[in-house]
């Protein structure tokens, strides 16, 4: 009789136990993250940073919190002349620093192989270079579907800085190209409402 009672009790416990699957890992990780110790210098009232802690728009760099707003800087080359070069500048806007994540570019088919080469310098023409020598376009830029992950380690592009992009065309025909710096503008976290990053409170 006692064995029967133990067996039935075990069956009840199994029925009551929640079914946990691998897809519950995100909830478990989220709960675990919330229980992590908070910085001791936070006031008892939640700061904007703490209030947005679970917000994926928030990034933390060098101890500061920022709102990351997706943005693309674009440079058009229409066209790069045959057997010639064309330079374009990208200047970071004055409203926010920029975190470069991906390098994306498109070019005419004639730029395949060795046809189109890239050099990027910082601080204007003749400034510090991103490469030891001109690099083939296809070794520099990916696509929107398969972007080149330039920003594996965070790379900050300060506001107002100028980047010069020089494309050299070694073919006998004009080549059109577009280059995109894909990443995030970083706004101070207290500007969340101004940049449209503040969630609408529930019930409104």
């Amino acid at each position, binding site marked *: 009789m006692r064995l029967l009672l133990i067996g039935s009790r075990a069956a009840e416990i199994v029925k009551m136990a929640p079914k946990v699957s*691998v*897809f519950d*890992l*995100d909830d478990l*990780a*989220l709960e*675990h*993250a919330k229980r*992590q110790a908070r910085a001791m210098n936070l006031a008892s009232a939640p700061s904007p940073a703490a209030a947005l802690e*679970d917000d*994926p728009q928030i*990034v*933390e760099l060098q101890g500061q919190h920022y709102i990351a707003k997706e943005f693309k800087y674009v440079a058009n080359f229409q066209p790069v002349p045959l057997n010639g070069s064309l330079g374009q500048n990208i200047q970071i806007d004055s409203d926010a620093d920029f975190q470069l*994540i*991906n*390098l994306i570019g498109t070019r005419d088919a004639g730029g*395949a*192989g*060795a046809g189109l*080469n890239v050099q990027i310098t*910082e*601080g204007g023409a003749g400034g*510090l270079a*991103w*490469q*030891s*020598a*001109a*690099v*083939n376009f*296809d*070794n*520099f*830029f*990916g*696509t929107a*579907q*398969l*972007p*080149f*992950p*330039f*920003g*594996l*380690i*965070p*790379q*900050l592009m*300060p506001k*107002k*800085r100028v980047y010069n992009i020089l494309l050299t065309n*070694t073919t006998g025909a004009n080549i059109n190209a577009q280059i995109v710096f894909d990443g995030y503008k970083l706004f101070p976290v207290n500007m969340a409402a101004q940049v449209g990053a503040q969630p609408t409170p529930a019930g409104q």
Partner: protein
Amino acid sequence: MINPWKQGRDPSVPMFPPLGAWMSRRKLASAAWVPPHYMRLQLAGAHPFWYQFLPGNLTLQAGETQLLRVTISEDFWQIATLGTASSALAAASGSFRLQIYEDDGEYYHSKYGVNQLNGVSGASEPGLNFFPHFIAAGTAVNCRVQNLDGSNPNTVSVVLWGYSNWWRGLNERPEYGK
């Protein structure tokens, strides 16, 4: 609701989208693989840099082998080997073979020559090293390339991409607009 920024997250790993790019394919319910924290710390402050083997865009005649070279000017952590070729050779191996070695044979990146499709990738979905490979400043890096197209010339370009120590601290200097 699944939060993609928190899913399987290790609290000691900062959230940052491109870290996931270190694994070109990741399972739905697992954290993205990234090199260990101590290794990523070594890259702090470094700047992405392309080292182009010279001569760049070298045209190899049918079946020809040539030697390319580049000297690393500052400490460098290689993340990927990128390459392009002009040949339309429809071979499973690709149109060229390469072997990279440092300091005149002191260190080889491969035991034998590696086919194009096994050794280099384009900037679209580059194959990333699991761990950055360190190359000291002043190292001469050689790349022997062989055109596998036995009938046509092939214009080949090979690049080392990674993070250069050259830039450390520069972004904080006022003359660079900070």
